[in-house]
């Protein structure tokens, strides 16, 4: 089960990792500053396997892949949001950070709720509230990238390496 950290709308990549830290792309270093100005306790208390739940337009702003890298560095198991900004969406798929679009889950799940994510069944199960939510299934073209283990693995496969 995963503990949920709840955020609002328009969490930008500047919130996720500030520009001043972009002198490295090391996941562990970035993780120590992830979301620090928004929730100072987040980088200190986040545990591997935790989940982020947010509102609309998650990951808006800069294209910095350091944002999903920082979340992966924190051990974040997945991000559930009402909607994702498009470059963040691409980046997450490309580097294998699981993301789930569900307006209902984004609205209903509260800070600290415990959830399980059933990828194959397409369900987010809220153990705290005893509810479940479906999420938008990925189109087959995106599933191929996810199943290959990210874009670079997918490219290697296609190039016949």
């Amino acid at each position, binding site marked *: 089960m995963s503990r949920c950290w709840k955020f609002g709308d*328009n969490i*930008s990549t*500047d*919130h996720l990792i*500030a*520009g*001043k830290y*972009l*002198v*490295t*792309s090391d996941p562990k270093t970035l993780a120590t500053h992830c979301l620090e*100005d*928004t929730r100072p306790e987040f980088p200190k208390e986040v545990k591997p396997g935790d989940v982020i739940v947010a509102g*609309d*337009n998650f990951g*808006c*702003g*800069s*294209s*910095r*892949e*350091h944002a*999903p*890298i920082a979340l992966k560095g924190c051990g974040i198991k997945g991000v559930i949001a009402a*909607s994702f*900004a*498009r*470059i963040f969406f*691409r*980046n997450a798929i*490309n*580097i294998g950070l699981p993301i789930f679009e569900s307006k209902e889950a984004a609205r209903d799940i509260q800070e600290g709720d415990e959830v399980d994510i059933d990828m194959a069944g397409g369900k987010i199960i809220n153990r705290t509230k005893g509810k479940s939510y479906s999420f938008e299934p990925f*189109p087959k*073209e*995106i599933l191929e*990238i996810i199943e290959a283990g*990210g*874009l*670079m*693995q997918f*490219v*290697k496969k*296609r*190039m016949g*390496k």
Partner: protein
Amino acid sequence: MTLAERIIASHAGQEEVHPGQFVYAEVDFCLGNDITAPVAIKEFEDAGLQKVFDRNRIALVPDHFTPSKDIASAQQVKTLRDFARKHQLAYFFEVGSVGIEHALLPEMGLVLPGDLIIGADSHTCTYGALGAFAVGVGSTDLAACFATGKVWLKVPETIKFVFNGKLPLWSSGKDLILFLISDIGVDGALYKAMEFTGPAISSLSMDDRFTICNMAIEAGAKAGIIPPDKITQKYVKGRARRSYVTYSSNGTASYCQIKEYDANTITPRVAIPSLPSNVQPVEALSQINIDQVVIGSCTNGRITDLRVAASLLKGKKVHPYVRLIIIPATQAIYLEALKEGLIEIFLKAGASVSTPTCGPCLGGHMGILAEGERCLATTNRNFPGRMGHPRSEVYLSSPAVAAASAITGRITHPANVA
């Protein structure tokens, strides 16, 4: 098909494409900077890839933290330099020739009408001003493109924005795009292409058009695009380093939405913290004091931006409580400003003029804010802490409003100091 769809179809080897369809499209040009390219290079090398798809179609532009602000940022630029030398890339720019990527590449004729361009920088959408389909992506997309020359794309729906009339005196492309983002919201064009048309757009300079397309991402868009016309052709002529094809939306174009506006009503605007959509008329903010003004960035660091700033600053002094930092976006713009006497006007007014860099826009260097400080900037984002301390504030405006406000120390309509 719409302009965006026609470009995608032609690059995906298809007669037609439709919104929602996935394609692997050929890329005419790709780019990365000193923040995003190191991650792309690592991905490329970790995957054991040996060869780039075309050494003449990749640009590495170290513009964000340059001239390198510290050892770590110098290492990042070195990663780009080493990769560029190893793969004999035609376009790597050292300090002395480097400029802000989205001003530099159009200026050099490296990005052209009808192109499909990807850049590991969200403001890659700027090139839509040329009638190109230009998309911001992440580092891994860039790494894959280094190897394959292709990108995966979902064909976006297009929203058509028609601007009738003419912008009033002291209003610019920046005021128009701030107005539009406030109308549709920061996710008002999420995943979509924004096509800007109408008499008010046709009468704008290329510099204003770059500003408008630059901030399409601030409405969540995949691309901003302006149909190429005589002004586009004139700009590209003599610069283009490749042949190119111009496209326009044809009779069968289908838009998910068409919105019409009267440009005559778009007076100078300012976006207040902490979203680019929190837009107010300048007059409503006349009591807001400022500590710093930044004129520059990929949004507003071009020659017409510097000219309008100089026209207001000529013979005047920057307010004693204000630091004015002016950053020409490229060396060519800097040199032109020097020849036209703009730099002398800035220096005599008490402004600081910097070598081209993204610097303060993303809180990198060259003008970081202390706790509680407030900056009026011609940049594109005002998220919390964007330019420094998490409790500092960024307001966004045109160069005219920024220059006028630097003189008075408060947010000021340019007409009040002209």
